[in-house]
C-alpha cells in the first residue's frame, strides 16, 4: 500500500560523497544518545535509594575527567566540521566545461531554457555524466531549487544570480521541489528532472527552436536600440561591451566593480547606479521594459562577446 522510502535514491556524484557522511553521523548520534541515556539509567538504578541501605552521598570532583570530556567533543566537532567542509568546498566551484542552463523561478513554476534556446516549464532534461550548471534568478520572491536525488539545493533570489551545478550519474526521473516557502502554491512548485543518456539528450534537444539565448539577446539588443551607443567600437556615448564580461570596470567617482551578472543586470535596469568612468549617464532605465527572460538573454549575448568567465 505504501512505500517505505528509507534511503533516498543516489543520482549524482555529490550524492555518493555526502551519503557516507550522513550515515556515519546517524550512527554516531544514535550511539552517543543511547549510550548516555543507558549510562544515566544504569547509574540511576545501580545507585537507587533503597530501604535499609544507608549511603552517604559523596561529592565527587575531578578536574581531569572534566577536561577530558570537554576536549573530546571539541575534537569530534572539528572532525565533523572538516569532513563536511572538504566535501562542500570541493563541490563549491563548478568545473569549466559545464552545460549552462538558465532557470527562472516565479510563483509557482520553474521556467528553464537550454543553451540552444529550447524552453521547458517544471521539467528539466539533462544528460548523464556531464556537469550541468544552472544559472538561476527569481522574478518575484525567494525560491529554492532542490533535487533530493542529487543532494543539491540552492536558493533562487530576485535581482541576483545564484548557480547550482551537478553531475547526474544515473538515468531516470527525479522529483524537483521548491524548498523555500514562497506563498500559496509553494508545495506545487515542483516538477521532474529527467536524466538521459547523452545521445538521447542530443536527440531531445534537436527538437527545439534554433534561437539560442545569445541570439535572442542580440535581437533584443538591436530592437531596443542598444547598439546606437554600445556598438562594437568604443563610441563616445557608451562603453563597448566587447570582452567586457568578467573584467573589472572602473567607476566614476573611484573604485572598480567586476562586470558579473549582477552588475550587468543592474546597469541595464538602473543605469545610473554604477556609471563607468569617462561616460555621462545618458542611458534610460529599462526597469519596466525587460522581464527576467530578456535580461538572461542579454547577459548571454554579452557573454558571447567574449571576456573572462565569471562565477
Amino acid at each position, binding site marked *: 500500500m*505504501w512505500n*517505505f*522510502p528509507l534511503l533516498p535514491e543516489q543520482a549524482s556524484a555529490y*550524492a555518493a*560523497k555526502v551519503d557516507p*557522511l*550522513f550515515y556515519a*553521523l546517524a550512527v554516531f*548520534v*544514535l550511539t*552517543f*544518545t543511547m549510550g*548516555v541515556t543507558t*549510562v*544515566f539509567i544504569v*547509574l*540511576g538504578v545501580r*545507585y537507587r*535509594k533503597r530501604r535499609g541501605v*544507608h*549511603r*552517604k*552521598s*559523596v*561529592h*565527587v*570532583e575531578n578536574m581531569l575527567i572534566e577536561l577530558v570530556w*570537554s576536549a573530546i*567533543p*571539541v575534537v569530534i566537532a572539528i572532525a565533523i*566540521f572538516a*569532513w*563536511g*567542509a572538504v*566535501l*562542500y568546498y570541493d563541490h563549491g566551484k563548478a568545473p569549466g566545461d559545464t552545460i549552462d542552463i538558465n532557470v527562472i523561478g516565479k*510563483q509557482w513554476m520553474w521556467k528553464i531554457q537550454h543553451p540552444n534556446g529550447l524552453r521547458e516549464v517544471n521539467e528539466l532534461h539533462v544528460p548523464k555524466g556531464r556537469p550541468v550548471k544552472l544559472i538561476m534568478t527569481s522574478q*518575484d*520572491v*525567494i525560491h529554492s531549487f*532542490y533535487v*533530493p536525488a542529487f543532494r543539491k*539545493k540552492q*536558493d533562487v*533570489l*530576485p535581482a*541576483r544570480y*545564484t548557480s547550482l551545478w551537478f553531475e547526474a550519474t544515473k538515468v531516470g526521473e527525479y*522529483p524537483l521541489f*521548491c*524548498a*523555500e*516557502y*514562497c*506563498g*500559496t*502554491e*509553494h*508545495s*506545487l512548485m515542483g516538477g521532474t528532472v529527467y536524466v538521459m543518456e547523452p545521445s538521447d539528450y542530443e536527440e531531445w534537444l534537436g527538437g527545439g527552436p534554433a534561437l539560442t539565448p545569445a541570439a535572442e539577446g542580440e535581437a533584443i539588443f538591436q530592437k531596443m536600440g542598444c547598439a546606437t551607443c554600445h556598438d562594437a567600437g568604443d563610441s563616445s556615448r557608451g562603453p563597448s561591451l566587447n570582452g567586457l564580461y568578467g573584467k573589472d570596470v572602473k567607476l566614476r567617482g573611484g573604485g572598480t566593480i567586476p562586470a558579473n551578472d549582477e552588475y550587468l543586470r543592474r546597469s541595464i535596469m538602473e543605469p545610473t547606479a554604477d556609471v563607468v568612468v569617462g561616460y555621462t549617464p545618458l542611458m534610460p532605465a529599462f526597469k519596466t521594459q525587460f522581464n527576467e527572460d530578456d535580461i538572461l538573454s542579454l547577459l548571454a549575448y554579452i557573454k558571447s562577446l567574449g571576456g573572462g568567465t565569471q562565477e
Partner: protein
Amino acid sequence: MSTEHLVEPSADFPVRDYGPPRVHYLNWRHTIASWLLSRDHKRIGIMYLVSISIFFVVGSLFAAIFRLELLTPEGDFLQADTYNKFFTLHGVVMIFFFLIPSIPAVLGNFLIPLMIGAKDVAFPKLNLASWYIFMVGGTIGVAIILLGGLDTGWTFYTPLSSSYANTHVFLAAMLVFITGFSSILTGLNFLVTIHKMRAPGLTWFRLPLFIWAHYATSVIQVLGTPVLAITVFLVGIERIWGVGIFDPALGGDPILFQHMFWFYSHPAVYIMILPGMGVISEVIACFSRNRVFGYEFIAFSSVAIAIIGFLVWGHHMYVSGQSMYANLVFSLLTMLVAVPSAIKIFNWTATLYKGNVIWETPMLYAVGFIGLFGIGGGTGLFLGTTGLDVPLHDTYFVVAHFHYVMVGGMVMAYLAGIHFWWPKITGKMYAQTPAKISAIVVFVGFNFTFFPQFLAGWNGMPRRYHSYNADFQIWNVLSTAGATVLGIGFLMPAFYLGWSLFFGKDAGSNPWGARGLEWEACTSPPIPHNFEEIPVVTQEAYAYTGEETVSV
C-alpha cells in the same frame, strides 16, 4: 532588613517541615483586581502560567489540524492558503507565546526570588508591566487570527512578507515588536535581581544552576531581542510606506533581512533551551541526592552558550547565496556551540554516580529530556555541517531537529519543572501514578511523531508543504498517529494537576526532601513576601547528604 536566620545542613533533614501557612500568596486577597494589579512575582508567574497554557492549547490545535491534512498526499482537507496560515500561526504562537516565555516567565518569575532569598524581583511594577505588554501582543495575535490570519511562515522572509503576502503582516510585525519588550524587560529584571538581591552569604558559586541558566538567558534576551524588534519594524515600514530595505524591487536586499532575523532568532533558540537546562540541573541534583557534578562547568557552559550562540546565525543561510567562506566560518562556530551542551549532559549523568537516586515524576521527565535533547542536539551537527546541510536544509529533517530540541528538550524540561515545583507553587501534591504514566506517554508519543520526520526529510520532503509526493505518505501517517498519542500525553497533566488543586493532599514545605531556599526556608505555598526573615546562606546550593526523605 530583618534578623538573620541560619539554614544549616543537618543530618536529620528536613530542618523543619512547615505546614501550610494560614495566609499565603494565593489566599491573602481574593479580588480580581488583587491579581491583575499584583506586583507579587508569584502571582505574576501564575498569570503567565495561565496565559501561556491557553496559547499552548491554541498552538497545538493548529498543529492538530494541519497534521490531519498531512495524512494524505493530496491537499484535500484544507485549502492551500488555510494550511499556510495554520503552520504560520502554529509557529508564531508556539515560539513567541509559549516557548520563549515558558520557563523564564513562569518558573523563573516564581522561583528566582525564592531561590536567592529575596522578597520579590528588583522591579515588581516592571514585572507586572511585562505581563501586560505580553498580553497586548497576545491580543494582537488573537486579532490576527480573527481577521483572517497570517501566511508568511514565522520567519517572515522578505520580499514575500514585505511585498507579496496579502495577510496581516503589519499587525504581525507589531505583535513581534511589542511582545519582544515583554521579554527584554523580564530579562532586565532578572539580571538586576540576580546581581543585587541575593541573600547574605549567597555567593555566585553557591547559586542554584537554575539561576545561572536564567542569568545567561536574560543576557541573550536583553541583547538579542532589540535586533528582532528593529528587523520587524523595518519590514513594517517597507510594507506600509514602500521604503526599500529588503525588497530588491525597491532597491533593498532580502539577504540582509535573513542576517538580521537570524541574529536574534538563533540566539532565541538558546533563550528557549537554557532555562530548561537549568531545570534539569535542579531536578537531577534533587533526585540523585548529590551535588551536581562539575557545577562550575555547567554554570560556565551556560555562559559559553550565550556568547557563542550570538556568532552562529549564518548557519541558517548556507544555501541562501551567502559566500562559501562565510559558510565555513559559521559552520566551525556552530560545531563549537555543541560542546558546552555535551559537557552538561556528561556532568548530569555523572551526578547520579554514588548518589541515592529516586525515580519520581520529575526525574522521568528529566531522563526523557536527556534522550530527546541528545537526538535534537546531535541532529544539529548534521545541519551545522556545510556539505550535509545542502540537501537537508528546509526539509522535514530540520522540522524534526528543532522539535526534538524545542519540544523534546524544552517542553520536557518545562514539564519536569512544573511537576517538581507544583507542590511549592500550589501547596498540593498530585497523584504520582498518572503523572509517571504521562511522562512515558509524552516520551513515546513524541518519538512516534517526530522521528519519522527525520526519514521524510532525508528522503527529500521539503517543509511547509500543503500537498506532497505520495512516496512520503507513510512517514506522515506515522507522524500524525504519534501526534495523537502526544496530544493525549499533554492533556493528562491538565487532569491530575487540576484534580490536585481541589482534592490533593497538602504537600508540606518540602515533599521531595530537596535542598535550596525555596524548599528549606519557605512554606508551600509561600507567604506573600516569601520569607518571615531573610535567610543567611552558609553553604553551597546542593548540600545533599543522601538521607533526605521523600513524602509524597
